[in-house]
């Protein structure tokens, strides 16, 4: 009986003491925080991908409240999250979601390897060691550094040797863009229309490009000539489009002899 009472007394006493202490300490060491911060945090995706440049969703929420980050600071959440956050903060947001496009079509079939590569199997290592494993020094190396970087499981290297983006999953966070040593991935707004060059070979020697890759840009300038709006120019070796003018007529896409040009809306369509 005595043991029973002692057990009760000790456990109740300890629980009460600790409970009281916890409550007390919470009061004295209370940190003032904006109630909006919790709301903003709730609106964010919570994947802690870090694409915004802050340590995680908590840190971004705090920065938004402090005014250090814009309401559309969450790159991966896109327009939807930006709208929610803007609502909480009492402002309007015009953010558009972006998606990533691989500006290379150098599959193994079109662009042969230089030689057998037996080094460390990452794009970065292959770039440093032999300037890429394929004939084309500018093209996709294909070891999937982008696939490793993607927190959303949206980009995968297929057996054909280049990564393919799952546009239903891509949030435009841009982590793969930073991972690619050849700078082949580019973020484009999801609602963009117009032509895009799916080649990054900046070699100005036509014969060399033909030797390197079957579907590389050979700088024939046909796209410049056929464009009715004169909005496509070959700059630094690849066609660049002025999207303010381009009306997505598709003349250049049809004219391109090596099938380098495509319409963005076709590339980023969710299949």
């Amino acid at each position, binding site marked *: 009986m005595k*043991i029973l009472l002692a057990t009760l007394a*000790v456990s109740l006493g300890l629980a009460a003491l600790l409970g009281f*202490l916890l409550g007390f*300490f919470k009061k004295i060491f209370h940190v003032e925080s904006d109630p909006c911060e919790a709301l903003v945090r709730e609106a964010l995706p919570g994947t802690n991908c870090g694409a915004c440049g802050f340590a995680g969703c908590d840190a971004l929420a705090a920065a938004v409240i402090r005014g250090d980050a814009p309401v559309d600071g969450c790159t991966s959440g896109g327009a939807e999250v930006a709208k929610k956050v803007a609502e909480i903060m009492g402002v309007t947001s015009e953010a558009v979601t972006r998606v990533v496009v691989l500006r290379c079509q150098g599959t193994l079939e079109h662009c042969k390897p230089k030689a057998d590569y037996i080094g460390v199997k990452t794009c970065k290592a292959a770039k440093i060691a032999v300037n890429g494993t394929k004939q084309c020094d500018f093209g996709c190396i294909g070891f999937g550094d982008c696939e490793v970087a993607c927190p959303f499981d949206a980009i995968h290297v297929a057996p054909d040797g280049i990564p393919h983006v799952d546009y239903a999953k891509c949030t435009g966070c841009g982590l793969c863009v930073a991972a690619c040593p050849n700078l082949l991935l580019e973020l484009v707004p999801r609602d963009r229309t117009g032509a895009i060059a799916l080649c990054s070979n900046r070699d100005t020697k036509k014969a060399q490009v033909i030797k390197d890759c079957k579907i590389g840009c050979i700088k024939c300038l046909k796209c410049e000539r056929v464009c009715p709006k004169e909005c496509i120019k070959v700059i630094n070796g690849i066609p660049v489009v002025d999207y303010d003018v381009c009306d997505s007529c598709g003349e250049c896409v049809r004219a391109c002899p090596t099938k380098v040009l495509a319409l963005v809306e076709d590339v980023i369509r969710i299949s």
Partner: protein
Amino acid sequence: MNELVKIFLSAMLIENIVLMRFLGLCPFIGMSTDIKKSTGMGVAVIFVTVLATAVTWPVYNGLLKPLDLEFLQILVFILVIASLVQLVEFYLKKSAPALYSSMGVYLALITTNCAILAVTFDVIIKGYSFIESLVYAVGVACGFFLSLILLAGIRERLKIAPVPAFLKGMPILFVAAGLLAMAFGGFDGLIK
């Protein structure tokens, strides 16, 4: 003094909590992905282990033992350690926000980790005095820190090693951890 050094070394190396006694394996595998992460975890473990021992030893010897309530120790220890870590968290959040943001996540994670709980039971089973208990706690936590850092180093090298496909990922990690444990077996008999 000599006795304390002996306790420290044997707790850290010979009876390494992870590699020789197989406690705290969850954070050992989970938090060893890179050296930076495991350093944060290791420091937090040292802190919490010492704190837990410093509190549970007096609670046991001053409260539970005189009242013949030794059987309550699991319950009471968990309660005391958990709320104490919570208190320290409040304190850090207020007075040292930088330290809190670097250690805060790990603190909550390890409140009643089995390795930490084991230390508090060990010092009682071994009948250590208060000072000896603290030294033992530091030793065990340093051992945990050491093995965590070692495994993290191995994992960073494994990332670029040509591992056979069937061993990739977890299997090679377990093999590495096993080899590490065998290596620590070599410390047996270091202290007579």
